[in-house]
């Protein structure tokens, strides 16, 4: 059995042209959804990565599972709103518990994080298997996400001009909010991320910024989770930010770069998934990690190649 037998032959027309000419209305939404998720996560990720909270996103994305299940069991509906609030509560609970365990005992932050999210995830899986018949929830969906079905969703009309799938519209709103908040509170975020002491001295409370960022992270992760699944949210949170930080030292440029990287990775990801006939979210994260690999090797000022040549 050879691994290469599984790869379908590459046909440029079939992979890159046909989706836009033949199935444009489906493809555009998968791409837009991927872009919105990656861009929202990426912009937020720039700050998360600098604050060394990269794995908190991972934790939140896992522990939304019990939140969703409990919300479903309580309301008996698969409506978006209860699900969203269940997940949000679980996300906030996660960050609170992590902080509680690590401030009230000698367990380190990373261990506390590992304890909290795995426990909540385990509770979620047990709940699903106990009420399995009633819950129309799929653990696979939790992990992979189902971005492929985004255009089969109900649509809403936007400004009377486009018919936008509900999910895409919602994610767009979240991404827009993230962008607005980052622009409005740019100074506070920047100063408290790099120099909490300075932040305190100019009247910014780092604790409030921290909790606000956690809330925003929970909201973003919960909305993104439906599209790309639990584990890949973390790829979208970390990779654009680290890739951009390999290329620049200026925060505004990094933020701009993450948006560009998001666009590239969701576009190429959609095509890669189509070519190999695999999970779109998985393909997108493969693309985004390849982009990081390229930046790591060839970055003009701190790439491995440049470092090797200087030596």
């Amino acid at each position, binding site marked *: 059995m050879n691994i290469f037998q599984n790869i379908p032959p590459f046909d440029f027309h079939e992979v890159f042209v046909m989706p836009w000419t033949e199935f444009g209305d489906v493809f555009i939404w998968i791409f837009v959804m991927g872009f919105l998720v990656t861009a929202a996560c990426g912009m937020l990720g720039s700050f998360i990565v600098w604050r060394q909270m*990269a794995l908190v996103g991972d934790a939140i994305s896992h522990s939304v599972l019990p939140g969703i299940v409990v919300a479903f069991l309580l309301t008996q509906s698969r409506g978006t709103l209860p699900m969203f609030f269940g997940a949000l509560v679980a996300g906030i609970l996660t960050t609170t518990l992590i902080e509680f365990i690590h401030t009230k005992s000698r367990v380190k932050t990373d261990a506390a994080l590992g304890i909290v999210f795995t*426990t909540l995830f385990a509770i979620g899986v047990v709940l699903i298997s106990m009420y399995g018949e009633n819950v129309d929830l799929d653990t696979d969906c939790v992990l992979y996400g189902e971005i492929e079905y985004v255009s089969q969703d109900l649509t809403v009309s936007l400004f009377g001009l486009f018919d936008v799938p509900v999910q895409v519209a919602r994610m767009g709103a979240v991404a827009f909010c993230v962008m607005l908040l980052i622009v409005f509170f740019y100074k506070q975020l920047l100063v408290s991320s790099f120099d909490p002491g300075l932040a305190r001295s100019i009247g910014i409370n780092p604790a409030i910024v921290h909790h606000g960022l956690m809330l925003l992270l929970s909201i973003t992760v919960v909305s993104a989770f439906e599209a790309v699944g639990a584990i890949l949210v*973390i790829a979208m949170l970390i990779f654009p930010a680290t890739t951009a930080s390999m290329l620049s030292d200026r925060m505004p440029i990094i933020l701009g770069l993450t948006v560009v990287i998001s666009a590239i990775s969701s576009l190429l990801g959609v095509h890669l998934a189509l070519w190999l*006939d695999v*999970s779109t979210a998985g393909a997108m994260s493969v693309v985004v*990690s390849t982009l990081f690999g390229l930046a790591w090797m060839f970055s003009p000022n701190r790439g491995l190649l440049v470092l090797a040549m200087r030596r």
Partner: protein
Amino acid sequence: MMSVSCKTGYMNGYRFLIRFGLILTVLTLAANARAAKISDLESIEFGEQLVRFFSMEDELLRTVLLGSLCLGLCCGLLGSFIVVRKLSLVGDALSHAVLPGVAIGFIVAGHKDPLAIFIGAIVAGLAGTVLVNLIKSTTHIKEDSSLGMVLAGFYGLGIVLITMVQKASIGNKAGLDKFLFGQVAALSSKEVTIMAVITVLSLVVIGLFYKQFLVGSFDAAYSKALGIPAQFFHYLLMLLLAFAVVISLQAVGAVLVSAMLIIPASSAYLLTDRMHRMLILSCLFGMGSGAMGAFFSFLGPNLPTGPLMVIAASTVFAASFFLSPKHGLVSRWLRFRDRTRRIRNENTVKAIYHVREKNYFEGEGVDIDALAARLKETRKATLLRVKFLTDANLGDVKEVDGNKNIFLNPEGWLMACTVVRNHRLWELYLTNEAEFEADHVHEDAEKIEHMLGEETVRQLERLLDFPRKDPHGKLIPSLADLQRTLTHSPRKNEPSGYRMPHS
């Protein structure tokens, strides 16, 4: 009392270890069961299931239980080292990073061959840890981000490969998704054998190089001075960790493997300060959680073993988080409460001493109003204070000429003398040795008086050449005075016979 309970817990631990060891041996001898699902047993009653579980006659059950115990033991052992090395989330990254290896192993072998999958997973896992270290050493990116990148990147690749495999027409691919969530009941005896081998291997390696691992975990500089190749042992640990992750993967799934690594070890970390005890406790908690997971999933028709194991482990963690004798939240709160009470009582008896000193130690009782005036608080507050004092059996309240008076009993008087002595000795030390001004020393002494131990006091006395007076000219109660207050009290429980110092 706390140390006693700790000790008995430790003894129980040894007994448990022996019992688990026996069960393990018996099960190893009898582990040749077929793979099947526990959920096949739906129709059987709860009670019957209980009997079946404890009679251990079911071969499937024995396989599952042996697998769970091996998993718990192995993860508990290695988890302790990664928790104390602050590498907790390396297990998480590893368990996700092995996924492409699992898929490639499957593709190469063409079917679900445990050995091929095992090798693929180990290679992928090690590649992941090497990559984390490479990113960390060649860029400015921090450890958590590099862990996250390896985790997510490899996992994305793994998902792509697995979806490819699932769509391709290869033989029996059932059970590949078990790597995501795990299914102990689907373990075959071959897999359990691999698990047992890996567990024994980890035990042997850790046993042989215990000192090297220990020193490397806590003191990198010392380990370097001893000539221990730290890098080698780091990667040896990572290799063992990769083994542990891979064998646990089918049982509990990628997401929850790190739980079995972190949670039992963290529970043990809260219970003891000694590494070997932590290792033993962590292994016990791991095995206990494994057995509990297997037990509870056996009771219901459709219950997954892995998550139940994790929930059992988390329950143990919650218990030690709150109730650990030394580091637990409740015990720390109790200690804090005891200390506040003691300090409050010490302040009260000190004030009583001061009032009596002002009266040249005439009369035994101290009027409540005089005490309230001395403490600069209301009569009501002072009465409350005095009540705490009488509750702690340090004194009694009696009516003298229509006024309420507080009488200290010998223990109370001893406490008063000790606190005053500590206070005045410290003041003297600060003025004489640390060259503080005499009017600056009171505040500091107010705090330290509650904390000075006997040993420190002896040292202070020697250093200050057994002084009799403090910087303000007041007499310091000496050790001899303190001893006399105890030995010379004629009637133990009645307030009487207290002399002034140096009488």
